[in-house]
């Protein structure tokens, strides 16, 4: 008797364990299915939207999602927000697990990577309205004739300058329609000297590659050619690194270890943001964040030109792209969200220039009066670049593997500024490593 009870007790125990295990598995299954079945209400579908950005962008994007859901009552949008630092690491893992969100924001460096693996849908074949977007902007998201990403907005890489720092050092602001690279280095050194070392002339530019891109274009080269090969010459890369070495020597920019620290501190810890530098390179849409940090107004300068100033090399870049997963179970609804983000005035009013100067021209015109001073400055800056024909052409979409270029550049730059590699050796290493990354 007692034996049979204990046996029964045991089988109950076993069943409990099995039941627990089963619910655990069912739990997994349920979350997995969430995409297709959606929550509760009849035929309401759930789509996921992934983006990177700061807290303020998380808030504003949620507002846009709320507005979208209000006008599309059959769609529920599940936000997946991440920081820039781990965005692609996480997105890669999601894509590997066949769990990529329906709508994602994409970056230049990874667009080809994803497109070439069949992970992104051709947006030209969806209902997304692109009639209000400039063809040249659509081109930057087109690979092999397919529209894999539509730019949310546009950006240029430019010099952020602090007029107060110039004034305090008693150095005249450069005329950015005529200045050359030599002027740039000379003026930067002057600021450091005249301010008694309290303010540096400029922040090191060679930890990441955007300035090299501009520099290469000034030399009639492209970092990557349209057929996906390195287009920049070793000499160009070497002279680009050489300037960093020279400027550290002339104290135009901080010492190597200080530069490393500043670079690691991001936008908020950059020299102009902390009032410790007169100039630094940034994307134009970062101006308002920088102004907020520094507490006074900053301005944008065009890239210095070569000696004859025939070409400034500036290019228009997509601040980010909206892409739709090729494996989305709800491509129609996903496309509706992209359309809303791009074309609705509602979304435009909330986004303003946070995702670049809107690529939809009607939205752009409508938001201009609503912008703060910094955003007005950067909007006008881009407008002028286009009107003055400073931006003459767009650059090719970078090849697969180009996502590594930032890391490679940062690493080699450390070797250069700490004197472990000569600029020539560094340039050779840069070419070798980038070639390896893009599989050449």
């Amino acid at each position: 008797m007692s034996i049979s009870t204990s046996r029964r007790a045991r089988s109950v125990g076993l069943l409990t364990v099995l039941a627990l295990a089963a619910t655990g598995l069912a739990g997994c299954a349920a979350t997995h299915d969430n995409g297709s079945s959606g929550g509760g209400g009849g035929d309401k579908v759930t789509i996921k939207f992934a983006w990177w950005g700061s807290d303020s962008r998380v808030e504003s994007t949620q507002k846009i999602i709320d507005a979208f859901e209000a006008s599309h009552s059959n769609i529920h949008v599940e936000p997946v927000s991440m920081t820039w630092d781990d965005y692609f690491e996480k997105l890669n893992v999601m894509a590997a697990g066949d769990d990529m969100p329906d709508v994602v924001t994409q970056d230049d460096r990874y667009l080809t990577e994803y497109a070439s693996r069949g992970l992104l849908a051709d947006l030209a074949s969806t209902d997304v309205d692109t009639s209000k977007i400039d063809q040249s902007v659509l081109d930057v998201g087109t690979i092999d004739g397919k529209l894999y990403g539509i730019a949310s907005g546009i950006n240029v890489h430019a010099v952020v300058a602090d007029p107060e720092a110039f004034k305090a050092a008693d150095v005249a602001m450069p005329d950015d329609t005529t200045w050359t690279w030599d002027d740039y280095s000379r003026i930067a050194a002057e600021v450091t000297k005249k301010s008694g070392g309290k303010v540096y002339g400029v922040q090191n530019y060679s930890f990441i590659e955007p300035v090299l891109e501009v520099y290469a274009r000034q030399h009639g080269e492209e970092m990557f050619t349209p057929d996906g090969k390195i287009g920049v010459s070793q000499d160009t890369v070497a002279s680009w690194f050489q300037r960093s070495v020279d400027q550290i020597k002339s104290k135009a920019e901080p010492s190597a270890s200080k530069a490393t620290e500043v670079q690691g501190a991001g936008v908020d810890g950059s020299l102009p943001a902390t009032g410790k530098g007169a100039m630094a390179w940034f994307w134009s849409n970062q101006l308002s964040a920088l102004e907020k940090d520094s507490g006074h107004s900053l301005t944008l300068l065009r890239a210095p030109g070569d000696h004859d100033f025939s070409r400034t090399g500036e290019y228009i870049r997509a601040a980010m792209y909206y892409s739709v997963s090729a494996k989305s179970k709800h491509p129609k609804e996903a496309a509706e969200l992209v359309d809303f983000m791009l074309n609705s005035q509602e979304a435009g009013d909330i986004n303003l220039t946070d995702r670049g100067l809107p690529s939809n021209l009607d939205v752009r015109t409508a938001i201009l009066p609503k912008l703060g001073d910094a955003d007005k400055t950067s909007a006008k800056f881009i407008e002028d670049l286009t009107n003055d024909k400073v931006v003459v052409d767009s650059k090719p979409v970078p090849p697969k593997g180009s996502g590594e270029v930032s890391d490679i550049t940062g690493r080699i730059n450390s070797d250069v500024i700490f004197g472990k590699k000569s600029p020539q050796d560094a340039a050779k290493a840069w070419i070798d490593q980038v070639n390896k990354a893009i599989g050449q």
Partner: protein
Amino acid sequence: MSAITELRSMKRKRGTPATKTSTNLRRSDGKAAAVFLAPWFLGLVTVTLFPLVASLYLSFTKYDLLSSPQWVGFQNFVDLFHDERIWQSLKVTMLYVVTSVPLQLGVALLVAVLLNQGMKGLAFYRSVIYLPSLMGGSVAIAILWREIFGEEGLLNKFLALFGIHGTGWVSNPDTALWTIVLLHVWTFGSPMIIFLAGLRQIPDMYYEASQLDGASRWRQFRSITLPLLSPIIFFNLVMQVITAFQAFTQAYVVSGGTGGPSDSTLFYTLYLYQEGFSNLHMGYASAMAWVLVLIILALTGLNFWLSKFWVFYGD
């Protein structure tokens, strides 16, 4: 009879009656045990064994996470030998292991011996000293570290009082690794607790006897404490070497995920992570992981072999 042999004979006595239990009861105990083990076993299979086997398979493939893996045989392992950064990361990791582990164990032993002098409020001091161990691996402390050793950090402000102009310790390739070694040494709490427990196991009579023979404190430490503590030292050594090889968080946070400046804090695991998740070379990263397993296995084996020469088990 020493306390240890006494304990052993007690165990033996208690063990005898168990053999007489009916085999019937034992078999049903086995079933119950299986049921209780099931959740753990399920976890082992799904979250440990399966990924383990999968990574072994992936190490022989070219796998970029986004498309399906392609078999490439031993290519990844061949590539490993030609990869400059692998050697750099091994150099950094080895340097870290051979400096931080002995230093940490030394400090842990020293503090344990001091705490074992029978002071008042031992429990309090023990807890306070253990605290860094709980926090040391955390992201918050690593960030704090970056602040302390920065160009305008606490350390340099302190040095400035003496007119010394320090460098940015974390951002200088010559010093960055040492700040992480220091961080590791600072978390000496857990080996210290184990040492303390070991010290308390050493019977007082040895010290009393040697004192009568006129042995100095140092002599006592060398001839009694060290030999009797050697199994504990060995245990700590093996565990800490393994942990040190797997160090990741501190280097990741202190260098902002880059292993910089100039790859001076590029720990093996950090490089592995970069390759796998940022550079989409998951097959290569899996191969790296298995090489790390082999390295740790070999070093642990070496440790065990060497232990024959210095660990004293009192048998």
